[in-house]
């Protein structure tokens, strides 16, 4: 029965959220919007980890991985915000399209 939830449901959900995260990264011009997209992607990965832990691996490794991912995401967000502050101080805007000095 397709409505009975199994591992695949979680994985598909994760894939959708992942894609939405990528979409968010690709369409937001606000730097913090991109950061939000990254968080979505990480969350999608975490769902995978926890779902596998529940359905396949059994032991707590998936949980531990997810804890570390959350931790790294927090660290990354802190640094990213700091970088955005510098970005903003330099260019007086938070629009990432304006930071295109490296264009080809």
């Amino acid at each position, binding site marked *: 029965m397709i409505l009975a939830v199994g591992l*695949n449901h979680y994985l598909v959900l994760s894939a959708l959220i992942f894609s939405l995260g990528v979409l968010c990264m690709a369409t937001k011009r606000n730097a913090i919007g991109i950061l939000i997209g990254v968080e979505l992607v990480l969350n999608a990965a975490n769902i995978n980890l926890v779902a596998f832990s529940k359905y396949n691996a059994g032991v707590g490794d998936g949980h531990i991985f997810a804890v570390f991912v959350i931790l790294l995401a*927090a660290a990354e967000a802190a640094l990213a915000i700091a970088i955005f502050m510098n970005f903003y101080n330099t260019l007086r805007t938070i629009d990432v399209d304006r930071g295109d000095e490296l264009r080809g």
Partner: protein
Amino acid sequence: MDDLAFYIFAAVSLLSAIGIVASSNIVRSAVCLLGTLGGVACLYFVLDANLLAVIQLIVYAGGTLVLMVFGIMLTSKSPWVGFRATRGQVAGAVLVAILMAVGISTLVLTAEWSQSANAPLKTSPSVAEVGEMLLTDYLVPFEVASVLLLVVMIGAAYLARTEK
């Protein structure tokens, strides 16, 4: 009932995620992110990962999100200033995202997992077990993570300081 809960929270997460993408107002995106984070946390509850769910709430929703909104406040001039991507960009991005979603979904649906994918294990690790693993098997990553956090703390403070 877990199934129903899954559908509800999955819907919350997904709709919020769509809201994030669809909203042109960055603060609204952040609020939608709160929805996604909360929904995912609830999914963790459904998956018997209580500790993880709570960590998700406390770190993401209580910490990271506040930081983001704080960052938005410091970098925006008004609630209504937004930047929009061009239609072409949006169309390309949507196409890529759909391709990606289709690809990954097909991948996971056609993959053959080693054990029965529809029978969740009865025993989930308790909080104490997860904690014990962190301090035994994963001690080195744990300590490395603490060092990393220190580095990040110093780095962020250094980056965000005011120039003199």
